[in-house]
């Protein structure tokens, strides 16, 4: 198989799939004797990525693998294809989602403790329906509340390969440090 053929197959498969494909899924397209190793596939993916750098569609690596996606700067026009305007999510939803992303696994009441307000059932439902969060288990306390965690879909939808790519949270100064500072301040 020529490198050109290999490239065409990988490119064709990624476009036909319409979703991210892993190296393993790409390897499975080939019969045993001609199956490319992971290294060759990564090289092919790099070549494809470079060739699409200036195009409307770009190769992107996300949590579930590699996929082609339409460049963000044409989104305002492209989104007119659909009648529904892309949603803007409420601050309540985004704060809840952030808490789940950074502090997972986390219960609803733990989220409420930090936000200082009740988390509406609607928000949790929307996040579950969007498949951005899932119930990862139950906390062994009375009532066995659900523990929420983010999903691979969440990472994919935000162009992330892993949670580690989320920006670091702002520093929080711990109590003793705060107390010490306050102490100092009050003596000035």
């Amino acid at each position, binding site marked *: 198989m020529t490198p050109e053929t290999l490239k065409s197959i990988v490119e*064709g498969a990624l*476009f*036909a*799939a*319409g*979703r991210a494909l892993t190296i393993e899924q790409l390897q499975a397209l080939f019969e045993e004797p001609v199956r490319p190793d992971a290294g060759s596939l990564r090289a092919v993916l790099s070549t494809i990525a470079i060739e699409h750098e200036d195009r409307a*569609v770009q190769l992107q690596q996300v949590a579930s693998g590699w*996929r*082609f*996606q*339409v*460049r*963000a700067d044409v*989104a305002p026009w*492209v*989104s007119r294809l659909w009648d529904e305007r*892309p*949603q*803007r*999510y*409420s*601050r*309540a939803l*985004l*704060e809840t*989602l*952030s*808490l789940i*992303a*950074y502090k997972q696994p986390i219960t609803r009441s733990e989220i409420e403790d*930090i*936000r*200082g*307000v*009740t988390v509406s059932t609607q928000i949790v439902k929307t996040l579950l329906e969007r498949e951005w969060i899932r119930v990862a288990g139950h906390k062994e306390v009375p009532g066995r509340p659900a523990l929420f965690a983010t999903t691979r879909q969440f990472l*994919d*939808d*935000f*162009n992330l390969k892993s949670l580690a790519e*989320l*920006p670091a*949270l*702002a*520093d*929080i*100064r711990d*109590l003793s440090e*705060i*107390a010490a*500072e*306050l*102490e100092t*301040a009050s003596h000035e």
Partner: protein
Amino acid sequence: MTEEVQTQETPEVIPESTPLATLHAVARVKGEAVTQIPHDLYIPPDALQVFLETFEGPLDFLLYLIRAQNLDILDIPVARITHQYLEYIDLMQRLNFDLAAEYLLMAAWLGEIKSRYLLPRQINAEGEDEGDPRAELIRRLQEYERFKRAAEHLEGMPCEGRDFFVAVAQQPDFSRVTPPPHVELSELLLALQDVLRRADLYESHHISRETLSMRERMSNILERIRPGGFVPFVTLFNVEEGRLGVVVSFMAVLELVKEGLIDLVQTHERADIHVRARVGEAQGQALDLGQDLGEDDIEQEGAFDDA
């Protein structure tokens, strides 16, 4: 609430046009006393409705009060913030707004902090300093603020379906290939073991007495005798198979006769013996499964496991 207010989505940042921005007018440089809050705090009733929609609870609101006055979160003048906070709460209650319990709880907490702050520092029974009464409030404000920032950041991140789209092209024509399941012989034997155990056939030698080669021969003979046709008896034997082969064939023929599957026919004495399959004349079908394969029951067993 009015329709107008309902349509107000909670904005990412508080718009400058919100009357709450009037607070900026009373903002003071850190350390400078702010005393004329009440009369500067005029908020049109409509704005109060927006107010409830604008903030994500009391922590968010407190953060706003602190930031609006360029104050350091670590050095909150509790008395002043509490005063402002209570002004709003009081105003809303006088206007009969249903306030979420969290706002009232915060008001109570602020009041407690304020009162404890006025008293001399408490030393508890173990001789430990109880610490700054504001510490817990500050910790919670900080904790909330970092997630408020994280949410803002998340909103700014490109999101599939809004800022970019997954590309898809028409797939080429293809035929779906379903490889038939592979079965190991051991699986088949295990299945047999199960069914035999259920049928309790180990004891009765009903099946095991017959050798398989005879069973196979029976099938082969049946196969060779087309329905309605005659086959010379002698052609069922192959002398090249030797004595054992002939015996097996003979026993197979006898078994078939016994089971009523074939007839042996001899037209007259000493004539050749022929073998005939027992077939109803009108129904010479070999593969018409109509009678055998009846209507399926709903609870029938399937051919495949639902995996």
